[in-house]
């Protein structure tokens, strides 16, 4: 009960500040928190990246295993994306099967990877109809201070960009490195009192009624979108959010994903 009351006070506080053009942490409306990307830190994973956006921390690990292709795509590799909202990351995360938030998070990141065709799935074919590489992208949220999607998506593509293919382990031969041909970047904005803010921290996420994630590739094409939250958005607000999405994705890509 005490926590709820605090939430309400915080919400008003956030609203009032934004009304006067300020954010809780002093950022501009179109400004991201500090981002850091550390790659290849988990040796047992074929690819990995630790992404921090402000105080949000997400660790993504990529593992490859040979497996059976889907019957309707016999010569294509398989991508499986999963997210865990690990209980230590927030007092609101409980152990147990994936809840709707972790399912949604995984599926949004997956959408971006698939839509951008970042992984050439046909290059993952080992034996058509029999054996292909399965790419497991596992998102491990370690600390939640808002905007898990952008951190997770950035972690996913950053991991994939330096993922080894463990041929030796399985007695196979082939390419050493996972062939990646796209760099999808997710940018999430929220609407609060008619204002559009990028990279919401936890307070802002809770205060906002609607959130929109826009995923785009290097060519400026849109590869995924997801509105979440219990509010509605005007078409003009969506247009602004898409513009911000494209602009910020370009900045993030150039700064963190160019090897």
């Amino acid at each position, binding site marked *: 009960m005490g926590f709820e009351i605090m939430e309400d006070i915080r919400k008003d506080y956030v609203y009032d500040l934004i009304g006067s053009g300020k954010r809780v942490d002093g950022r501009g409306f179109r400004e991201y928190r500090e981002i850091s990307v550390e790659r290849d830190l988990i040796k047992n994973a074929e690819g990995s990246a630790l992404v921090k956006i402000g105080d949000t921390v997400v660790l993504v690990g990529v593992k490859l295993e040979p497996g059976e292709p889907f019957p309707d795509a016999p010569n294509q590799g398989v991508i499986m994306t999963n997210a865990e909202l690990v209980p230590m990351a927030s007092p609101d995360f409980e152990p147990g099967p994936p809840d709707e938030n972790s399912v949604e998070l995984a599926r949004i990141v997956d959408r971006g990877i698939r839509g951008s065709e970042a992984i050439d799935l046909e290059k993952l074919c080992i034996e058509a109809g029999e054996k292909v590489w399965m790419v497991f992208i596992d998102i491990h949220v370690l600390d939640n201070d808002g905007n898990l999607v952008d951190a997770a998506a950035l972690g996913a593509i950053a991991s994939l960009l330096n993922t080894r293919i463990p041929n030796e382990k399985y007695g196979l031969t082939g390419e050493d490195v996972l062939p990646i041909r796209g760099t999808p970047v997710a940018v999430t904005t929220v609407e609060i009192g008619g204002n559009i803010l990028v990279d919401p921290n936890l307070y802002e996420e809770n205060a906002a009624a609607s959130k929109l994630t826009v995923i785009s590739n290097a060519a400026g094409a849109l590869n995924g979108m997801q*509105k979440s939250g219990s509010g509605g958005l005007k078409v003009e607000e969506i247009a602004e959010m898409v513009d911000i999405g494209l602009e910020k994705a370009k900045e993030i890509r150039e700064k963190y994903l160019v090897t």
Partner: protein
Amino acid sequence: MGEEIKLIKDGKRLDGRGFEELRPIKIEVGILKRADGSCYFELGNNKVIAAVYGPREMHPRHFQDAKMAVVKYRYNMAPFSVDDRKRPGPDRRSVEISKVSREALDPVIIKEYYPKTAIDVYVEVLQSDAGTRTAGINAASVALAAAGIPMRDLVSSIAVGKIDGEVVLDLSAAEDNYGEADMPVAMVARTNTITMLQMDGQFSKEEFERGLKLATSACRKIYELQRTALVEKYSESVGEGEA
């Protein structure tokens, strides 16, 4: 995937529709006896039923909200609804669809009227041909109104996509499987407010804008159909009264 499948032949889609044409829609209000509100909805070959129970007591108690009703939405596909039998029970796709659908309807429900209660929305897909989540939201809107739930507006929903490079309205399953983009949208017709927006595949910014415009205008047409179904329900529910 072998051969390229042509989804547009001679300017027409596989099922003969034009690029901006909706599949036929059928709406029946109040088809279930036990539910507080219900609606059967057909969108082309999609057949879905939405049922609303509530407001009713919310269990477990600790999930109650002291100030307002809690809306719950469960989207579920019957095992026989798709070509390759779907194992019963919620899968990850259903979990996500349930979430975004609930968030599509939440903005219009006046929850403050029924504190501490639950409003349960159940959507069952009986037959699927792409677009089931949009059919579900359309049906759920009508079922909520029929149940007497206080709402600001009805919500209407449809998907747009891209096939063979063309932006088209209301994808069928083949178009969804072999197309280049899929974007389900939900909207409040009266205020032009978008309450659900998802996209996967590839859209240029301009294609996205065109698609959104197409979707919103189709939603307005669907709204008229939803409204008519509700209004006409009363002109036919007058039973054999006269002796």
